């Protein structure tokens, strides 16, 4: 087993007064695919949102406990105020269940995180975008239409585009929320391959409903199925 | 005997509209009448002298008030009967902060025509003059225009206000203002201007030495009858005339 990248210690999560997660203690290994499984409503998506603090955008959400991540050498609590959420989110990519391209061209979609980060040199942008699109195996399909609107792509292509967008900042951690559930088996398989590829560079955390998928690619499983006691 | 006795046993609606200067008096009278006799309903609306004459002529209302004598054409076409129950001066007013408190008619004409544009020229402070006037259907305006301006021009830059109250607000708040209004509405927040050496007060208006004055008329279509008759008679009775005086106008009796 690879060394841990993230450690979660006695974590509770609430929406207003409704407790969603209670006393979670988990370790996420580096350069591996961690799969989160469990029934609908168990809090899988919520759990995922802990790693890039996306839960903060939900009014009434509140977290207790610590999420420690090792970005350079030592573990740090990512929920401390001095940890910049912008920096965090640039180091932690995310791919949603439904592909969500922004209303701009294919190229600009992938270049968008660079724009946000203030990276402007034309050439650097060009290279990084191309590399990200290639990494997702999308290059042959879109190289002639980079200026077209991203919404003209098929569902599977859009999902890989979102993946490329998440990868262009070369994140250390990649979160995926049921990335293949809205895709047909062929597109799904393509994404699975890509994930296995990415392990070398990234720590992947994925929510999945499909047992065969989990079995096939996950290195580590976190199960949210409530035990008989609850 | 009480002047209100005449309304005993009467009932019905009485619609009054028109000149705005009349309203305080008419309202007070209506209040007394309706308190005594709840079967009578009197509605009072403004609208201006022109509207008052027109509406009563068209039969929309029972009594049309006007702050000027209806023109002979108006009297002719509608068969109006006129009832004058008070006299009201039209006072030229300025802000109390203004050093200029007396003017001649000639100066007034030149001010309103836009020829004189600074109080300095009249011995006041170095301030531009802000003119305030009323809209064309106003009885006050037509009296002022005829008797104070001798039908002279009013500058285009003059501000229009819609009523005596608005005139009061405007002039009381504006140190460079000059305007004109029903003398009955003048209070301590305004300075009435001495015109050709005559102060517009009750005495000078009553004895005719203050020329810019007018009657307050209540007009009916044809000779007044029924409730309208009684109402006008009440205005002309002692109690009615007392109200007139109380509201700052000059009784006719």
């Amino acid at each position, binding site marked *: 087993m690879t060394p841990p990248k993230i450690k979660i210690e006695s974590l509770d999560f609430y929406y207003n007064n409704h407790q969603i997660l209670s006393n979670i203690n988990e370790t996420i290994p580096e350069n591996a695919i961690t799969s989160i499984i469990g029934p609908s409503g168990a809090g899988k998506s919520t759990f995922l949102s802990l790693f890039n603090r996306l839960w903060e955008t939900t009014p009434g959400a509140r977290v207790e406990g610590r999420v420690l991540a090792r970005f350079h050498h030592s573990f740090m609590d990512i929920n401390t105020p001095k940890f910049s959420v912008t920096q965090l989110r640039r180091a932690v990519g995310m791919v949603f269940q439904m592909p969500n391209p922004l209303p701009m061209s294919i190229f600009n979609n992938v270049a968008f995180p660079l724009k946000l980060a203030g990276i402007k040199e034309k050439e650097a942008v060009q290279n990084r975008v191309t590399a990200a699109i290639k990494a997702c195996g999308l290059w042959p399909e879109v190289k002639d239409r980079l200026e077209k609107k991203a919404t003209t792509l098929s569902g599977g292509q859009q999902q890989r585009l979102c993946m490329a967008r998440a990868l262009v900042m070369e994140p250390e951690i990649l979160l995926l929320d049921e990335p293949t559930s809205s895709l047909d088996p062929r597109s799904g398989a393509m994404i699975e391959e890509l994930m296995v590829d990415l392990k070398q560079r990234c720590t992947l955390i994925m929510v999945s409903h499909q047992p065969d998928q989990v079995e096939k690619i996950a290195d580590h499983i976190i199960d949210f199925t409530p035990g008989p006691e609850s | 005997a009480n002047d209100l006795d005449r309304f005993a046993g009467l009932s019905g609606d009485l619609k009054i509209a028109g000149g*705005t200067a009349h309203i305080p008096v008419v309202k007070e009278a209506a209040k007394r009448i*309706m308190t005594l006799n709840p079967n009578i309903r009197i*509605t*009072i609306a403004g609208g201006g002298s022109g509207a008052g004459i027109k509406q009563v002529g068209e039969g929309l*209302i029972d009594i049309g008030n006007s702050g000027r004598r209806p023109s002979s054409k108006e009297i002719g076409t509608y068969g109006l009967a006129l009832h004058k129950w008070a006299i009201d001066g039209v006072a030229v007013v300025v802000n109390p902060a203004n050093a200029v408190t007396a003017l001649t008619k000639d100066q007034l004409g030149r001010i309103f025509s836009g020829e004189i544009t600074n109080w300095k020229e009249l011995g006041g402070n170095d301030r531009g003059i802000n003119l305030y006037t009323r809209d064309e259907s106003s009885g006050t305006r037509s009296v002022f225009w005829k008797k104070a301006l001798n039908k002279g021009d009013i500058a285009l830059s003059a501000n229009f206000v819609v009523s005596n109250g*608005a005139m*009061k607000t405007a002039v009381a708040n504006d140190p460079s203002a000059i305007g004109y209004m029903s003398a009955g509405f003048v*209070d301590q927040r305004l300075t009435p201007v001495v015109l050709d050496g005559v102060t517009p007060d009750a005495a000078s208006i009553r004895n005719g030495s203050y020329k810019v004055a007018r009657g307050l008329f209540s007009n009916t279509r044809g000779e007044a009858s029924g409730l309208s008759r009684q109402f006008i008679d009440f205005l002309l009775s002692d109690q009615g005339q007392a109200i007139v005086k109380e509201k700052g106008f000059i009784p006719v009796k």
Partner: protein
Amino acid sequence: MNRWGEKAVYALSVISCMMLFGSVATLLCYLLIKGLPALNLGLIFGSTPVGDALLLKRQVFDGIFPAMAGTLALILLAITIAVPLGLLAGIYMAEYSGRFTRNVFGFLFDLLSGIPSIVVGLFGFSAILFLHHHVSEALVPSLLVSALSLAFLVLPYIVKTTQMALETVPRQTRVTGLALGATKLQNIVFCLIPESFSTILGGIILAVGRCAEDTAVIMLTGAVASAGLPNSLFKGFEALPFYIYYISSQYADQAELNQGFGACIVLLLICATLFILAAIIQRKVKHTLLYRH
């Protein structure tokens, strides 16, 4: 965009908020300072004993009680006329009209909603004058004429919000009822209207607010300075906004002016009450519509 650019954008937006809220707060404070001293039972009931006034035993002369009653009567009347018509028209526009009718009527309703209220008032006035001359002498500017004109003024609001609310019901919800075998009408009544109820109510509230505050229309169509409590559809009536307008233009002394400020506060309170009431209705009615067996 660099950090300074971001800060500037943020600062600008905060400044605009402060400007707007600042000016409205100033306005309200001024109103309160001026009006609160005048705000007492005397303002509302004049010299008439409160009990007698409420029981309609005696008329109120120098209070704003008749004006308040007039305003309420006016709102009620105008809304009873406008709401059913507006709802029906809105439903028609959203669910039954063809493309052509939708475009043409849509434009006309837009146009209607853009007509200045004084023009509506003018129309009401001219219409009643015409009828007075050619139909019956008894027809004069009155409560009914004002209410009709106001209804006409707010109708487009109601139509448009109803239409928009229905059209923006998600396709998912729209199809659910149909897939279960609802007829078109059933779908509208049981699914679409409950779903869009709050938006529609919002439109109605705006309309009520408009009726409560509009002065230009009633000024021309029947509001008078003094009439007592409204007791007939065919007579003149008092109304609060007109009272305020009247005071501002006819006040004799400072005390009367302060009454005007007091009346402003009362009018504001009435509007606020309507808003709050609407919020309550929204919860309650929605609940009964959806959760009652």
